[in-house]
């Protein structure tokens, strides 16, 4: 310890051992990975004419990666799907499979990141966001997710007063002066093409897709992309379902906040909150549903043969404040999502039930027994 030279050698040796492992050793182990095909021949060779993965980014996306790095997106976004036993990433729908070292060999900037104030972006290109959606998100994330902490990047856009067709409409959820139009700069376009190309949608010999249970939601559902999931339903019905879904998911005045208990996937929580998907109550008598939506429900209830005992405050913020139209919409929605398919509920039907309950004190919750016994 007293001889500086020996001391220096000592401390460099200890450091050098870790260096040998993490730098030299790791490089010799997986420093020469190359793209390969999804499935190998029996002898381990790459089949002739097979498509090779990963593919390299397009020129524009490569420039987008530079922007991504320069703006420090990696501060809040990871780009790695962890192994199933190490985290919830696949369950959350952030990827079809865990990421592998080979996925990154063609990237100039490997931006794995180590913080997730924002969601993982390794597979953002698989989430079927439109370019406009991504532009709107980059311009002002809060116009899509009101509680997002992602910094708006108005400096990547030009605000336009007289929009042409290619300009992007920023749909504000609270801005009273109406919607704004912006024109993306070339940097914004690069970023969006980079994001769209971020996807690990191929299998590799060392890693295959993970089967995930069906009831897991793919991603956050937001008002702007509801129209994308349109089925063959008539427009009035689809509108009612869309509005109903908004109410179901909204946790602010005018919303029903239903998803907090019954969950976004309509499955409820085992033992606590009954499911709505496939529920004999939801698909059954409308009048009972309307009554519950006005006054709430307490006590024991049996849904699909399972007993639950909990309190459901009258939906709405403040409780019991949903209008006839809102109740009609949200009930129509829950009767027509998650595989449910039942007749729509109209505002008139709600009004009739409300009329029949005129004498009932506000906030006086129903019990299941009261609802199942025939009205005198």
């Amino acid at each position, binding site marked *: 310890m*007293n001889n*500086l030279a020996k*001391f*220096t050698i*000592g*401390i460099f040796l*200890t*450091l050098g*051992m*870790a260096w040998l492992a*993490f*730098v030299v050793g*790791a490089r010799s182990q*997986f*420093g020469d*990975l190359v793209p390969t095909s999804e499935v190998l021949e029996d002898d381990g060779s790459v089949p002739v004419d097979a498509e090779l993965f990963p593919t390299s980014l397009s020129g524009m996306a490569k420039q987008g990666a530079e922007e991504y*790095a320069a*703006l*420090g*997106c*990696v*501060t*809040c976004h*990871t780009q790695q799907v*962890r*192994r199933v*036993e190490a*985290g*919830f990433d696949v369950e*959350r*729908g952030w990827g079809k499979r865990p*990421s592998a070292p*080979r996925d*990154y*060999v063609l990237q100039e*900037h*490997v*931006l*794995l*990141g*180590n*913080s*997730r*104030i*924002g*969601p993982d972006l390794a597979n953002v290109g698989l989430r079927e966001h439109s370019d406009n959606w991504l532009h709107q998100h980059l311009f002002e*994330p809060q116009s899509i997710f009101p*509680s997002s*902490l*992602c*910094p*708006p*990047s*108005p*400096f990547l856009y030009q605000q336009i007063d007289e929009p042409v067709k290619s300009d992007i409409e920023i749909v504000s959820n609270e801005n009273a002066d109406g919607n704004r139009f912006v024109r993306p700069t070339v940097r914004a376009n690069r970023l969006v093409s980079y994001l769209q190309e971020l996807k690990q949608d191929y299998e590799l010999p060392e890693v295959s897709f993970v089967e995930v249970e069906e009831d*897991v939601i793919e991603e*956050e559902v937001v008002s702007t992309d509801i129209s994308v999931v349109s089925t063959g339903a008539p427009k009035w019905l689809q509108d009612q379902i869309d509005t109903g879904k908004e109410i179901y998911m909204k946790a602010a005045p005018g919303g029903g906040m239903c998803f907090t208990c019954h*969950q*976004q*996937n309509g499955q409820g929580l085992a033992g606590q909150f009954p499911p709505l998907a496939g529920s004999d109550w939801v698909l059954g008598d409308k009048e009972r549903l309307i009554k519950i939506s006005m006054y709430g429900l307490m006590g024991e209830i049996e849904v699909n043969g399972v007993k639950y005992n909990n309190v459901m405050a009258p939906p709405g913020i403040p409780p019991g404040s949903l209008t006839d139209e809102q109740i009609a919409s949200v009930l129509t929605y829950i009767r027509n999502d998650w595989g449910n398919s039942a007749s729509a509920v109209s505002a008139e039907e709600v009004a009739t039930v409300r009329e029949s309950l005129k004498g009932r004190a506000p906030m006086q919750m129903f019990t299941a027994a009261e609802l199942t016994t025939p009205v005198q």
Partner: protein
Amino acid sequence: MSVDSPDKVIDRSAKLVFSFFLSSAGLWLLTAALLAYVAAAKLTDPFFLSTYEFLTYGKIKVAQANAFVYGWGGNAIFAVSIWILARLSQAEVRGSVFIVFAGVIWNLAITFGLLGIMDGHMSGHEMLEMPTEVWPAMLISYLIITFLVLVIHRSRQVRETIAPQWFILAALLWFPALFLIAWNGLEINPARGTLQTVLSMWYGQSLVWLWLTPVALGAAYYLIPAILGRTIDKYYLAIFGFWCIAALAPWSVVHHLEGGPVPMWIPAIGTVMSIAMVFPIAVASTNFHATAFMDIGKVWDSLPLRFVIFGTLSYTVSSYIGVVFSLPAVAKITQFTIINEFHFNQRVYGFFSMIIFGAVYFALPRITGKEIPKAAKSFHFWTSTLGVLMLLLAYLIGGLTHGVLAGQPSLPWASSVIQSIQPYFLITKFAFIILAFSQFVFVVNVWRVIFPNPFAFFAADDKEASA
């Protein structure tokens, strides 16, 4: 001059470099505090200053970490290690002009580096985000300073070295080695794919473990006996603790890659070595606290020591928490959450900075001959304590909430997971305001002593020398 004690001669020889590094460190500390506030404010209101591209969150956050580690950390390390090594070597500081010259280059390099980050030339490598153009300047100026520090050490009067010297010398020597390894692996012979991440993460975490940490430990090993006037209890363990850190810390830092796209042995080794770190932590903790608690009244009365003991306690607690969080079962929840912020701030504020504050308050009166008012120091101590504890609790509880909620795939991300940790960001914003205020007090305390009359600094120096 012949009647001066040797210590006084040494202190006087260190005055120029110590004052230079300390006053620059103070400026960086305030810069970092301002950036930390802006970053924290942006997490409570994303629209705060959002129209300025150079102030976007990703850049500010990174600039703040770099200003803190290289600006404040680097300058503070130079100031404290030069003085402690000169004192322990009983040798005068020579070549002050060269040291200051190199120090100016170091500070200019970081300034340009931060401007480069804000101007959009950030590299994506952890703790090496400054544009590559400034790396040579940083390395060369660092090597000049380190060389001159080694000269001081080589001219020591007593051949036997003690714990503070090992820790400080090792830290000074490890940094350029780490820097060169990272530079080579990331830019000169760039590794492909996730090897880059392994290397940059290894570098970024090692910087804290092998550069900031040993300097602070070394300073604690020097200050506790010096102030209490008693030897370190169970001092024979210190050498074991030192080599444990040297041997284990470089391995332990990669456990953050748990579950990621790297071979499994990398995080696995990291986890095992993190657990083994309980030994050096226990050693340092025993050495410091067994000594301090023999004379706890004196610790309380001496403000420098109060800072140091706060730092060593924080080191012990944070390191044990770090061990727990490296266990795979816990890492599954806490990985990628704002617990990372807890670790970083615990280490750089709660541990490193607090010990540096203590060292400065101990050294500065001896070097300049001017006492800092006790009330000012005390105010600094209490505001720091309040700010640090607020910050750490918010990040710890917020991080656990973050992890637990994120682990439930049915909860939507922005409207549920992120919304529920927003209150904690609000707390951190207030904590950063308190810390900024406290650091301002520190800088004022220091500057008032170094520059009692800003324009007569060198003149006063001459007068003192000729007196």
